[in-house]
């Protein structure tokens, strides 16, 4: 399937086109949300690596529940929180396939905490793409384990009280401490420079599966303008000022070794 390019554009002037691994389905994400960019990056990396027919995705429950409608590879839709267990079963019987999960913070860091930890501890040879927007987006903006202190959500209308609800969960740092994780990084997609970096990290997570080193975990801190009740630009600014200090961007573990800071 070749993408139709406008005859107005001369081939030598073409700098960007939609990946053929992205389907023509309309994205169900809210306008301004980082999910659309992240979904595109995953599709582009699969395309550029030429691994479309060797890749099986595992979608989860949340905003990305319909990921299989957007990325044109075989998919399994996992129950809420169980994506890494599904990926474990899949990868164990298909070790020659590239297997990835795509999960939100409620899915990976709340209901799926047990599956996430044990999958990482066993060092399953898979990629995990973890989108952290500090809120339950699809269900309507409820508190997530990653919700910042004082942050207003529909279940914390007066702000998250950490005495009652505990502290925002930096699960990625904990997972990096496990011997089964091979590559752990935290990225964002709010600027063109961040998008390029995030794409490199996603590519690395796929490439690592050839080395059979263990779990590659790419956390992407993203905005949820609908859930945060902000305009997209304002949401990105709020993210830089509030999310990044608590969830600092950068590599945490490379080739099985923690990055010294």
């Amino acid at each position, binding site marked *: 399937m070749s993408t139709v390019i406008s005859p107005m554009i001369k081939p030598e002037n073409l700098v960007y086109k939609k990946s053929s691994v992205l389907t023509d389905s309309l994205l169900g994400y809210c306008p301004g949300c980082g999910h659309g960019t992240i979904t595109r990056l995953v599709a582009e990396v699969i395309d550029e690596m030429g691994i479309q027919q060797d890749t099986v995705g595992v979608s989860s429950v949340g905003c990305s529940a319909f990921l299989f409608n957007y990325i044109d590879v075989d998919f399994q*839709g996992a129950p809420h929180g169980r994506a890494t267990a599904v990926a474990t079963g899949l990868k164990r019987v298909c070790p020659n396939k590239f297997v990835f999960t795509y999960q939100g913070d409620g899915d990976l860091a709340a209901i799926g905490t047990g599956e996430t930890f044990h999958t990482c501890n066993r060092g399953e040879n898979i990629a995990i793409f973890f989108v952290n927007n500090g809120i339950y987006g699809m269900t309507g903006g409820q508190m997530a384990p990653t919700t910042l202190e004082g942050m207003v959500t529909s279940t914390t209308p007066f702000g998250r009280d950490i005495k009652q609800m505990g502290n925002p969960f930096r699960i990625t740092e904990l997972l990096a401490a496990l011997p089964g994780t091979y590559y752990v990084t935290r990225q964002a997609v709010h600027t063109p420079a961040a998008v390029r970096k995030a794409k490199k990290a996603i590519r690395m997570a796929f490439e690592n599966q050839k080395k059979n080193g263990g779990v590659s975990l790419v956390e992407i801190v993203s905005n949820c303008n609908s859930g945060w009740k902000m305009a997209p630009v304002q949401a990105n600014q709020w993210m830089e000022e509030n999310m990044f200090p608590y969830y600092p961007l950068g590599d945490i573990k490379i080739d099985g070794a923690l990055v010294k800071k």
Partner: protein
Amino acid sequence: MNEFLLMEGNEALAEAAIRAGADAYFGYPITPQSEVMEYLAEQKTEERTGMIVLQAESEVAAINMIYGAGGAGRKAIITSSGPGISLMQEGISYLAAGEVPCVLANIMRGGPGLGTIQPSQGDYFQATRGGGHGDYRTLVLAPSSVQEMADFVPLAFDLSFKYRNPVLILADGMIGKMMERVKFPPQQKRLTENEIIERYPWATTGKTPNRRQNIIKSVELVSELQEENNRIILAKYERMMAEDVRWEEIETNDADYLIVAFGSAARICRKVIDLARNEGIKAGLFRPVTLFPFPSVRLQKMTQRIKAILTIELSSGQMVEDVRLSVNGKIPVEFYGRMGGIVPTPFEVLDVLKSKLINTNK
């Protein structure tokens, strides 16, 4: 090796899984069935046939590993007991909705709650009514001997791929832990990746340019399409009822009274039939082998000659509801059961047969 071996039920089930060419086992230890995973581990299945055996961190994880492997068109099997099976119900609902074939075994113990580790048949409702959320069923096979523990594994795999639906082997601690002689079929070869791609065009084996994406999923937000999905799986259950109802009858040709029992309870009742016949009572045994689909049609037909039915279960009375639905009030249906892991003796059941059935339904 085509000779009789002396083995316990759990081990026979494990050996049968290897021989059936299973690709993967995922599980979590729980009494009275931990021997399944122990046996598989001891057999070094990866060397013997290439079968993967993995101990998961919970039954919740294990059932989802089954989903991953089954969705890829592999023969995957999982075993547990009541409390573990309860934890798997979320996953079983997704397996049924996503039309993923797999074999499950519940080696039942007494409940509710943590209950006891002794045998029980108290998970009958959970097994035959779906068990998890939503509108679905699993096909349920009830073995009554160690030989059937072995025989039902390849049968369950065949049925699960025939219908693309989970198949549950519902046994209990008595069948699981009892030793008997057992004979196995020769080793079946595991399918190659190319054979899987050819046979199971729905499996997530990797999207090739000549086909559309394969997606194992259950989400459908458009009501009309979701109802259509429900109709598709409902049609499978109707086909099961037409093509795969199984039962056994013992001494029913001239019987006046019928005992209905499955699994280990049927083993006891077999002896009760002999004792009753020695006393001149014309009793017969009807043993449902598939609990879903339940052999209702046959049972209803038998009410034309039978005077009354006694249902025996190791529970407070669950299958008896299906017996009553089948009989539809035509003849009396009595019930007797023991709980807490207690298994009634044949003489105990014979006394019940005489007092509850014969003396009141002459």
